[in-house]
C-alpha cells in the first residue's frame, strides 16, 4: 500500500522542482507589472542570467559569485527595459520582446565564443552547484509511514534556491502589501498621478520595481543552470518565462494565488511527463501536449472573463508624463 504512494510522492517532488523558476519569475512579474510596467522579458532575463550564472561559476568556481553575476546580468536587462519604457516612454511590449530575442542571440553567441561547445557551457561539478540540502532528523522521522516519505522526498532534499523561491513569495507578499514601498508601488501601477501629487517620484518607483524584478529573474536563471542543472544549455529557459507570465495573470497579480498557479502549472508538466505512454482507465493515453497547453488555455479562458475576471493594474502599459 505504501508502495503505491511512491509515484505520487515523486510527482510532488518534481512539481516543486519544475515550479521553482516559475515562482521566481512570476514574483518578478508581479513587482514589475504592479508598478505599471508590462514584463514580457521575463523569459529573456531568466535565460541571460542562467548563462551568466553558469559562466561565472565555471570561471570562478564559486556558485555564490555565479548567483551574484546572474542577478547583475538580469538587472542590466531590466535597466535597458526601464531606459526604453520609463525614460524614453517606448512601447513596453516591444522592449520586452527585444530583450527576449537579444538574450537568445547573446547567450548562444557568447557561449560559442567563450567555450566553443555549440552554445553550452562546460558541465559544472557538484561543488560548483547549489546541492540538495538534507534536513536533520531525517533518520528519526523516516520510519513514520507516509509522512516520513513525504518529508524526505518532497520537503527535504532540495537545493537552497528552491527554499528561497518559497521565501520570495512571502517576501513579495510582505513587501507589496505590508510596507510603505509596496503601497507606493501598487499606487504607481494603478494611478501614477495620485503618486505624483502625493510628492513621490513615479520614475524612481518604477525603476526600483523593475530592478527587484531583475533580481528575482536572476535567481530563476541561476536555479536553471547552477542548481537544478549543471551548466547552461541553449534556450534552456524553454518558454518558462511565458508560463510564469501566465501564472501571474492566473494568480491575478497576487503573490499567494500566483504561487498556487505556479505549482499547478508545474504539477501539470510533471504529470504530463509521468503519464506519457500510460493507458488510463476509460480515458486511454493522455497526450503530454494537453498538459503542456493547459496553462496557456486556462490563462486565455481566465483573461476572457469566463472564470472570474483577471484585472490588470489600472495604469499598466501606459508611460507616465506630467503634462499629458
Amino acid at each position, binding site marked *: 500500500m505504501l508502495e503505491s504512494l511512491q509515484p505520487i510522492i515523486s510527482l510532488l517532488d518534481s512539481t516543486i522542482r519544475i515550479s521553482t523558476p516559475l515562482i521566481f519569475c512570476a514574483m518578478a512579474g508581479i513587482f514589475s507589472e504592479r508598478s505599471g510596467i508590462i514584463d514580457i522579458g521575463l523569459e529573456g532575463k531568466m535565460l541571460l542570467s542562467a548563462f551568466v550564472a553558469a559562466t561565472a561559476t565555471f570561471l570562478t568556481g564559486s556558485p555564490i559569485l555565479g548567483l551574484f553575476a546572474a542577478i547583475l546580468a538580469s538587472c542590466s536587462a531590466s535597466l535597458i527595459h526601464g531606459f526604453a519604457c520609463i525614460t524614453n516612454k517606448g512601447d513596453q511590449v516591444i522592449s520586452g520582446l527585444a530583450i527576449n530575442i537579444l538574450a537568445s*542571440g547573446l547567450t548562444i553567441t557568447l557561449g560559442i565564443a567563450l567555450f566553443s561547445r555549440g552554445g553550452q557551457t562546460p558541465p559544472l561539478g557538484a561543488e560548483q552547484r547549489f546541492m540538495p540540502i538534507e534536513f536533520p532528523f531525517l533518520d528519526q522521522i523516516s520510519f513514520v509511514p507516509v509522512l516520513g516519505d513525504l518529508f524526505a522526498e518532497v520537503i527535504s532534499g532540495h537545493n537552497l534556491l528552491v527554499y528561497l523561491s518559497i521565501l520570495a513569495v512571502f517576501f513579495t507578499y510582505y513587501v507589496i502589501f505590508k510596507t510603505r514601498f509596496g503601497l507606493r508601488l501598487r499606487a504607481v501601477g494603478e494611478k501614477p498621478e495620485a503618486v505624483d501629487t502625493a510628492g513621490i517620484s513615479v520614475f524612481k518607483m518604477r525603476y526600483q520595481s523593475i530592478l527587484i524584478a531583475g533580481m528575482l529573474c536572476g535567481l530563476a536563471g541561476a536555479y536553471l543552470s547552477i542548481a537544478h542543472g549543471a551548466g547552461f544549455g541553449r534556450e534552456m529557459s524553454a518558454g518558462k518565462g511565458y508560463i510564469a507570465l501566465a501564472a501571474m*495573470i492566473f494568480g491575478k497579480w497576487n503573490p499567494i494565488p500566483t504561487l498556487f498557479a505556479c505549482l499547478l502549472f508545474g504539477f501539470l508538466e510533471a504529470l504530463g511527463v509521468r503519464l506519457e505512454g500510460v493507458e488510463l482507465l476509460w480515458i486511454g493515453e493522455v497526450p503530454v501536449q494537453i498538459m503542456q497547453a493547459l496553462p496557456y488555455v486556462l490563462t486565455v479562458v481566465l483573461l476572457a472573463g469566463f472564470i472570474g475576471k483577471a484585472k490588470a493594474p489600472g495604469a499598466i502599459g501606459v508611460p507616465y508624463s506630467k503634462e499629458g
Partner: protein
Amino acid sequence: MSDSNIIPKWLSVGVIPLLNLLLAFCVSGLFIFFIGENPFKAISVMIKGAFYYPGAIGYTLYYTTNFIFTGLAVALAFHARLFNIGGEGQAYIGGLGVGLTCLIFDQYLAGFLVTILAILGSVIFGAVWGIIPGYLQAKRGSHIVITTIMFNFIAAALMVYLLVNVIIEPGQMSPETRDFASGVGLVQIHMLAKYLGLNMAMSPLNLSFGIALIVSVGFWFLVWRTKFGYEVRSLGHSETAAIYAGIKVSYTIIIVMAISGGLAGLVAINELLGVHNKLLLGFTAGYGFTGIAVALMGRNHPFGIFLASLLFGALYQGGTELDFEFSSITREMVLLIQGLIILFSGALAYMLNPLVENIYIKYYGNYNNA
C-alpha cells in the same frame, strides 16, 4: 507612438529610422569586436554569403519571402493599433491547413488544384488562429498581446500532438507527414529557369516569392485604397473619431486579425509547398517574431517591409556563412542583431527625435537668419 511635428517627413521617416538601424549595427559590431573578431570582416562575409555565392541570392530571397508575409501580418494589425505577437502560431497553424488539404485531396485531385486549395487552407487556418484572439479582444476585452502569446504556445503543443500522434507517416520516427503527391507544390525558380532554358544555381526560392510581392501590392491597396483600409487606419489613429464616423470597432478588429492571421499563414506555402513538400515540426523557425522587427523597421508600409525583409533575408542567409568562416561567431549572431534592431527601431524608436529636432531647429534657425 507618434512622429514629431517639428521636423520634416524626410527626417522622421527617412533619416531617423536609418540612424536607429545604424545604432543597432554599431552595437552588434561592438559585440563582435569584444568577442575578438573583426566586425568589418564579419560584414563582408555576410554580404558575400547573402549575395555573392551561386544560389546565395535565391536563398536570401527565399528567407525574404517568409519575412514579407509575417511583416505584413504584424503591420496590418499595427494599422488598427493592435499588437499581433501571434504570427508564429498563425504561420504554424497555416501549415496545418496546407498539410491537411494536401493529405486529404492529393490522392483525388490534380496537383495544381490541390496546391490552390492548400494555399487557401494556409490562409483560412492562419486566419482562424488570428480571429480567436481578435474576438477575445473585441468582445471580451482580453489583452491581445497576452492572448496571441498564449496562442503561439497552444499552436506549438497542438502541432506536436498532431504530428507525433495523428498525421505522422506510419512507420516513420521523426514527426513529419508523408510527402505530398508529386505535382503538388509551388515550383522552385531554378527549376522554372531550367525549363525556360536558363541556368540558375539551385536554391529553395519558389513561386511564393511572387505571391509575396503580389500580396504586398494587395496590402497597399487594402490599406490605402479601400473603404475597409480607411476604417482600419481611422480606428488605429483615433478610436473616438472612428466611433464618430460610424465605424464598427469590434467588427473591424476581428476582420483585421483574420487577415493578419491569414497573411502569417502564408509562410506555410513558402516552407511546405515550396521547399519541404510535407508538414514537419517547427518549420516556422521564429519567422513570426522576426516579422515584428520587419514591420517596425518597414514602418508598416509594404515597400518598407520589402526592404526590411530583404535585409533580414540577407542577414539570415549571410549569417549561415559565418559558421564556415569563423570559429567564434555563428548564425545566431543574427538573432542578436535582430534583438538590437527591435530595441532601437521599436522600443527606442523616438529616442533620437529630440536630438534631431534640436539640430534641425538650430540649423534651420541659422538658415532663416542668414
